[in-house]
C-alpha cells in the first residue's frame, strides 16, 4: 500500500518541489533540497502577472458557467430521459456515451467557423457554449443513471401529494439526486477547467485559459521549468481540492452508476 501511495503522490509532489526550488538546484544528479533554498518567488511572480491572472480568471469563469449550464440543461434533459419511455430513447442514451468517442480534433475547424459566425470566437461565451456541448452528453448520461435510481414510488407519492411534473423534478428528483449531481457538477467543472485543445484553438488572446497559459511556458526561447511547475500546481490545486472535498460523492456518483448492471 505504501508503494501505491508513493506512486499516487510522488509525481505531483515532485512537481510541487520543482515549483519551490530554483531549477538549478534540482537539475543535477543530486537534487539539493535544502529547505533554505525554498522560495515562493515563482508563485508570487505568477500570481501578480496579469498575463497569468487573466487566464486564471477566465478558466474560473468558464468552468463555473459551463458547470451551471450543464447542470441546469443536463438535469432537465436527463430527467426526461430517465422518466419517459419513447421510441429511440435507448439510441439517444447510447449516443450520449458515443459522443465521448469523437476526437475533438475533427471538430476544431468547423467549431471555429461556427463560433466566428456567431461572433463569439475568442470570447468566454464561445468557450462556455462549446464546453457545454461537449460536457452535456456526459452529464446527461450520468444524471440519467442517478434519476433512475430514485424509487418511482417517491414520485408517485409526490403526485398524490399534489406535485406537477415540474415540481416533482425540482422538489423531489433533483434534491434526491444531489450527491450524484454534485459529483457530476465537479466532473463537468474539471473537464472544462482542464481542457487544453479547444481552448488553444478557439482563443487567441482575450479568452485564453489556464491550461493554455500553463502549456505556454514551453516557449521556443524560454523554457521556464519553475514557472511551468508552478503553473501546473496552480492549475491542479483547485480541482484537487474540489475532488478531495467531494470525494465521497464523486466515487459514488462517477462510478456506481456505471457499475450497476
Amino acid at each position, binding site marked *: 500500500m505504501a508503494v501505491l501511495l508513493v506512486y499516487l503522490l510522488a509525481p505531483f509532489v515532485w512537481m510541487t518541489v520543482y515549483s519551490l526550488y530554483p531549477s538549478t538546484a534540482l537539475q543535477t544528479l543530486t537534487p539539493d533540497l535544502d529547505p533554505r533554498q525554498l522560495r515562493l518567488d515563482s508563485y508570487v511572480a505568477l500570481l501578480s502577472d496579469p498575463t497569468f491572472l487573466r487566464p486564471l480568471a477566465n478558466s474560473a469563469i468558464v468552468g463555473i458557467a459551463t458547470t451551471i449550464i450543464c447542470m441546469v440543461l443536463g438535469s432537465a434533459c436527463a430527467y426526461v430521459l430517465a422518466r419517459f419511455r419513447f421510441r429511440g430513447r435507448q439510441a439517444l442514451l447510447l449516443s450520449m456515451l458515443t459522443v465521448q468517442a469523437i476526437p475533438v480534433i475533427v471538430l476544431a475547424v468547423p467549431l471555429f467557423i461556427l463560433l466566428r459566425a456567431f*461572433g463569439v470566437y475568442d470570447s468566454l461565451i464561445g468557450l462556455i457554449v462549446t464546453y457545454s456541448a461537449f460536457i452535456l452528453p456526459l452529464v446527461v448520461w450520468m444524471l440519467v443513471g442517478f434519476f433512475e435510481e430514485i424509487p418511482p414510488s417517491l414520485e408517485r407519492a409526490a403526485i398524490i401529494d399534489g406535485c406537477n411534473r415540474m415540481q416533482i423534478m425540482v422538489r423531489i428528483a433533483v434534491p434526491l439526486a444531489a450527491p450524484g449531481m454534485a459529483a457530476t457538477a465537479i466532473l463537468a467543472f474539471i473537464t472544462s477547467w482542464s481542457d487544453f485543445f479547444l481552448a488553444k484553438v478557439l482563443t487567441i488572446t482575450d479568452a485564453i485559459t489556464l491550461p493554455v497559459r500553463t502549456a505556454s511556458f514551453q516557449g521556443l526561447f524560454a523554457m521556464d521549468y519553475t514557472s511551468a511547475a508552478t503553473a501546473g500546481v496552480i492549475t491542479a490545486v483547485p480541482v484537487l481540492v474540489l475532488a478531495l472535498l467531494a470525494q465521497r460523492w464523486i466515487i459514488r456518483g462517477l462510478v456506481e452508476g456505471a457499475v450497476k448492471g
Partner: protein
Amino acid sequence: GCVGANSTDSNTGAEDGPLAPGDSPSGEITILDDNTNQVFQDSTIAAFEAATGITVRTYTQGNFNDLHDRFATLFAAGDTSIDVVMTWAGWTAEFGQAGWLQELDSAAVPDDLIQPALDAVSWDGKVYGLPKFASVQTMFWNKNMMGEADLDPEAGPQNWDEFVEAAKAMTTEDRWGFACDVGNPAGAYQNFLRVLLLNGGDMYDDEFRPIFNSEHGVEALAKFAELLTVHGVMDPASLQTTNASDLGDQFARGSTGMVFNWPFQYAVATAAESQLDTESVGNGLIPGMSVRSASIDGSEGFAISKFSQNKDAALAWLQFAASAEVQREIVEREGWFPVSQTVLEDPQSREALPVLETYEESTQYATKRWGVPWSNELDQLLSVQISDVLNERTSAQDALDSAAQQTQELVDRYLG
C-alpha cells in the same frame, strides 16, 4: 480580439496587387506577435504611435509554439480582426502560398535589408513582410572547459575535425563536448540543414528538386551522427531536447562545451544564474566540413494579414519595426541581430553586442533556411529518418534517399 465578419473596406480594392506605402496612413491596427521581443511592448509602440498617429489597438504576444495553429485557424476563417502577424521563413512560405499574407510592393521594402532576413519574409519571389530581427546561429563555447581540456580557450575550432577533437577533449564523465536540439521535427531539420550547408551541400536545386541526399548530404549527416554514435561527444539528451532554450540553459549550466545556437544564447550564458560570464563565453563561426563555415537562419518579421482592414497602417508598423531606430534597440536591449546592413556596421552596435562580429563574419558564408510551404511535412518526415540514423537503425544514405523521395512528392504537390 473580436471578429468582424465580412465588412468591406476601402482597402479591399487593392487586394490583388502588391501593397505599396500609402499617404499618411491612420486609424487602428492590431498586432499578434510571438513573445521573443519585449522591446515593442516597452517602447516601440509608443514611439510608433507618436511618429505616425496610428493607434495600436492591441499588441498581443502569443507563445511561438501556439501561434501556428492560431494563425492557421484565423486565416482559414478569414478573420479580419488581426492586421499584423509575426512571421518567419516557414510561415511566410506556408501562409504566403495559402494566400493569407499581403504581398508587398518593392517600394515598401527598405533596400539595406540583410539577405537572409529578407528571405525569411519572402517566398517564391514575393515579399510578404518585413523582418523585425535577424537571427543566425553561431558557435558558443565554454572557455573554462576549453582551458581544462588544454585547448586554447580564445580560438574556437576552425573546422569540423578540430571541432570533433575539441569535443572529445572536453567530454568527461558528466560533461559533453557538444549538444544540440534534435528532439522535435523542426530541430531535426535545422541540425541537418546546418551540417548539409557546412559540407557544401544544399536542399534543392534551381528547379526545387531535392538534392539533399547528395554525397555532401550523406557525408554531412553521417558525420553529424558520428558525434553521438562513434565519438560519443554529443549529449544523448540532445535527442529529446525540443527547443533552443533548453539547449541554452544546458550550456549555461556549464555541462556542455560547445553549442551552435541563436544569438540569445549570449544573453542566457551571461545572465546572473548562469555558470558562465562574459569572460568565459567564447563565440565564433560554426566550423565547416568542406567549407569554412555556414549557418542557418532564424530571422523573424512581421507580415500583413490578407484580411486586414487597414493595410496601409499595418505597413507603416512593418516599416517602423525595420527602421534603424528600432533595430538598434533590439540589438542593444535584446541581443538579436539587426536586419539592416547599416545598423550592423554601426560600431555602437558592435560594442553593445560583441557576438555581432561573428555574425558579420558569417554573412560571407551560406546562411539559409529554405522556408517552403511544405516545411512542416518535411520537418516531420526528416525527423523520423534522422532519428533512425542517430539510433543506428538505418544508414545516412538510405535515410536521405527515402526523405528525398518523399520530399519530391511534397514538392510536386505544392508546386506542381
